[in-house]
């Protein structure tokens, strides 16, 4: 066996996994806070990337309206602003009217939301593939390539580092702060949360805004890697098996799940693929998730579902 090749496959799988994790993180946030699987998470990542691109590009709306484009850091801050406004609108127009409804109804609402956001993005920014360049380094990491002969993209290393920072910050936010406790409370029981003085509206705006910011990070990474394109919203589907593996309620679970899927599908593609004619990468994650559901339905790190009967 070629160990160097194996290492490269595993590392590259880990890096892809990080990208999955970034998308999955957004899902976990909203699931923790409202017990809802947010179908629109992928589209939010797309929308954030589109907005960011618009602030930067000469042909963007922003340039046409104001006659100049924004420098990268300002554009990122502006996009964060856009995502906060989007979160506020979602609460105002959708969630506020669905307090105390069944999870399935909220889920349907997020499907609607996904289409609205996707359509809005298409109308505003057009559906062509846009190269997003915010100055992140590209190409192979020289030291690894020259020293060890391992090919790893610099961009992927940055994505991994960003994910690590994000997870740390979010974990602290959820476990140590009053808002974190309030978020978990809202996820558990709307009425009870209200009765202890938690404002659902505030919590929802906060959590959707945070999910929007996570979506922006995911959008930047994916956009830098393969351009901002509408297929980005489909990556959201890959987040599903990641969540089933990691557990819907666990921030670290999203990361570990993403890594397992990333590595697993690369390994499967290379070592099992040739036996069955390839293209394993497309379905491996779903099969793994299915197998996992049979053994451990709450995921690796998820809270065990307790129901008294």
């Amino acid at each position, binding site marked *: 066996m070629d160990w160097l090749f194996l290492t490269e496959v595993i590392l590259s799988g880990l890096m892809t996994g990080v990208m999955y994790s970034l998308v999955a993180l957004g899902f976990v946030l909203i699931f923790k806070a409202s017990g809802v699987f947010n179908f629109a998470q992928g589209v939010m990542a797309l929308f954030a990337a589109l907005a960011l691109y618009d602030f930067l590009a000469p042909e963007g709306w922003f340039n046409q309206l104001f006659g100049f484009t924004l420098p990268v850091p300002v554009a990122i801050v502006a996009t964060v602003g856009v995502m906060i406004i989007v979160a506020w609108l979602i609460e105002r127009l959708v969630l506020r009217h669905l307090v105390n409804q069944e999870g399935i109804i909220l889920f349907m609402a997020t499907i609607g939301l996904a289409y609205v956001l996707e359509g809005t993005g298409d109308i505003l920014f057009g559906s062509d593939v846009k190269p997003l360049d915010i100055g992140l380094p590209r190409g192979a990491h020289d030291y690894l390539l020259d020293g060890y002969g391992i090919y790893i993209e610099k961009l992927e290393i940055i994505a991994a580092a960003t994910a690590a920072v994000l997870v740390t910050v979010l974990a602290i936010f959820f476990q140590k702060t009053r808002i974190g406790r309030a978020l978990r*409370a809202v996820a558990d029981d709307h009425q009870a949360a209200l009765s202890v003085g938690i*404002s659902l509206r505030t919590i929802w705006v906060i959590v959707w805004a945070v999910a929007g910011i996570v979506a922006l990070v995911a959008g930047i990474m994916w956009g830098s890697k393969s351009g901002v394109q509408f297929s980005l919203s489909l990556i959201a589907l890959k987040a599903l098996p990641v969540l089933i593996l990691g557990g819907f309620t666990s921030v670290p679970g999203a990361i570990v799940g993403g890594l397992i899927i990333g590595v697993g599908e690369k390994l499967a593609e290379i070592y099992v693929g040739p036996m069955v004619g390839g293209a394993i990468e497309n379905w491996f994650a779903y099969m793994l998730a299915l197998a996992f559901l049979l053994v451990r339905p709450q995921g690796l790190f998820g809270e065990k579902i307790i129901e008294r009967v």
Partner: protein
Amino acid sequence: MTTRKQIGDVVLAVDNISLTFGGVRALTDISFEVRAHQVLSIIGPNGAGKSSMLNVINGFYHPQKGLITYRGVTRKQMRPHEAARQGIARTFQNIALFKGMSTLDNIMTGRNTLMKRNLLWQALRRGPAEREELAHRERVEQIIDFLEIEHIRKTPVGKLPYGLQKRVELGRALAAEPTLLLLDEPMAGMNIEEKQDMSRFVLDVNSEFGTTIVLIEHDMGVVMDISDHVVVLDYGRKIGDGPPDEVRNNQTVIDAYLGVSHD
């Protein structure tokens, strides 16, 4: 038993409250007053509108007609999280706890309205936020002692038996240090021993903290024992309002309970 506190001024007054759901009249022209340090029971047959009344008081339901005066401020309706911030805490008929969280965390959420320090400090667990968290923890531990639930501090409440869940829910409400405590059937589904425990807690809360309590209860023995005042509802109308002895001998009330035909 310790001596009862002196009954004080009116804390809460509901005035001509009417509530309908579509064509169904849940409450019709209900008025009554709750005085400081009182234990007031709302009784009545199933479907009389008792829970609806509590939901109006803490803002889950918005009445079509009528006014609510709480601590001198008159409103057409309350909003739940604002009611909580102004000192109205409650428990639910079908327990509404945060099932995935431990007893301790559940009761900590009750302190939500009392926590002030900003996020950054909390995240860092330093300085004022650390002291604040510790102070809140101490209060919560006192409540846990008071309700005799030390042994289940770390247990996820979803795993607890019904009677204990009811107790944790009371603990969460108490953690907010409420002025007005609303208890929706705190003793439903309990055996005699558990009922006695719960009655004792309710009376202790009332006498030790001076908390004003409005409760819904079906067990007449309990109601007559612990209440200072009783309001009787039937088909969404008020048919009795007075001290327990008076209500017990009220013919309309007796008819409602014994099922005299309404004609």
